[in-house]
């Protein structure tokens, strides 16, 4: 494994200091969160920043807070803390499940939720859960604070809508729909340290007649960005999900995806796995459905 190429380093103590540094250096500088993705890529030579701005001393970016409007998670919060947080497990099951699937416990105790999002792998495990939570991301930059709906955050592989000098500061998670059940399922190769092949987050709420009141399907690893399977969601709304409808919805979700063939699998395989995960998820969530 090669050495990390040389760069200059700065560790700001506050968001303000970080913003000043970022504004001064612009595209020459990359932000360092946990480093579990960035430093690997620097060793591989795929990213070669001249400067790194390390956020590890900016304490206000780390923490999980319960608010009236839901949850606020600081961008530098380690994934381990997200996974084990009682309020995340209570209010956002898919996010807690997704966080627990990443890397290994040691990696998760250093890797951050903000890093996972800003690295913007199309397979980022936390993304489908944030999509189905309809989360909002908060960033700070020269023009002040900006709120970005998570659906608008990802622009392509490794591309986010953050502008030059902008720093992701928090993730705001509204509560999931009342009476809903939710989960995150991941299909990967044998080692969890590898990227997800397909990640699927699901939220399902059913009314007293058994009809689908709300359904949200988030998919990772099967498009240039994490996506919602909108046509599948439309198909499922107001239906009573018997096994034939579950299969139709899973099939539509598969058609909503646009995976590429790569070293992890062929496009056809990935499409089939989207259907398999949605099928599995819907069966799990609907069979245990409690009628209100």
């Amino acid at each position: 494994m090669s050495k990390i190429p040389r760069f200059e380093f700065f560790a700001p103590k506050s968001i303000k200091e970080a913003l000043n540094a970022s504004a001064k250096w612009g595209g020459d500088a990359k932000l360092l969160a946990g480093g579990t993705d960035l430093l690997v890529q620097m060793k591989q030579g795929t990213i070669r920043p001249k400067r790194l701005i390390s956020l590890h001393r900016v304490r206000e970016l780390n923490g999980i807070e319960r608010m009236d409007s839901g949850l606020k998670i600081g961008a530098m919060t380690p994934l381990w803390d997200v996974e084990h947080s009682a309020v995340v497990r209570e209010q956002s099951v898919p996010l807690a499940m997704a966080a627990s699937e990443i890397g290994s416990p040691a990696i998760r105790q250093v890797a951050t939720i903000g890093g996972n999002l800003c690295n913007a792998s199309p397979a980022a495990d936390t993304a489908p859960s944030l999509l189905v939570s309809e989360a909002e991301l908060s960033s700070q930059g020269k023009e002040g604070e900006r709120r970005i709906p998570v659906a608008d955050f990802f622009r392509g592989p490794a591309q986010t809508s953050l502008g030059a000098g902008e720093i992701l500061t928090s993730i705001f998670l509204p509560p999931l729909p009342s009476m809903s059940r939710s989960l995150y399922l991941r299909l990967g190769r044998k080692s969890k340290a590898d990227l997800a092949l397909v990640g699927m987050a699901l939220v399902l709420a059913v009314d007293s007649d058994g009809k689908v009141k709300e359904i949200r399907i988030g998919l990772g690893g099967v498009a240039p960005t994490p996506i919602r399977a909108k046509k599948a969601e439309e198909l499922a709304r107001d239906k009573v999900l018997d096994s034939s409808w579950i299969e139709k919805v899973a099939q539509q979700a598969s058609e909503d995806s646009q995976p590429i063939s790569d070293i992890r699998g062929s496009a056809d395989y990935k499409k089939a796995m989207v259907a398999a995960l949605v099928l599995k998820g819907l069966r799990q969530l609907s069979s245990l459905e409690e009628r209100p």
Partner: protein
Amino acid sequence: MKRSKTYPLRLKVNGVVHKLRVQAHRTLLEVLREDLGLTGAKEGCGRGECGSCTVIIGGRPVKSCIFLALQAEGEAITTIEGLAQEKTLDPLQRAFIDHGAIQCGFCTPGMILTARTLLAGRATPREEEIRDYLSGNLCRCTGYQKIVQAIQAVAGEGEKK
């Protein structure tokens, strides 16, 4: 010849404070091994997947090969060399020896330190919890069984066979 910029770095390693100057690109693993002579942490994969580089920072296992030395500024770090108290081995070190959990020994420091953080947080983990927690530590020799047994023994669950 132009020399690369160096940065001050204050590290407390196994209770001893070191004041160093390091280049930004140097990983914590490199600094521990090359500058401080603490060669217990190893470079296996170099990408944070095999766990042989694991050290403990603030009670958390850290893959030091993908952690800049400068990210550890001001922190207290425990390496395998710091586990034993004077001549007394840590219970995990004792158990690994007693249970035959060491063959070539390359993964051992990382295994023991990772297990130490597990047991600090959870006194009696189930076998599957031990295996899952150690999923970031790879062993090519033992097949893991005796490693798990050694950890269980320390956790007080006794040997399962």
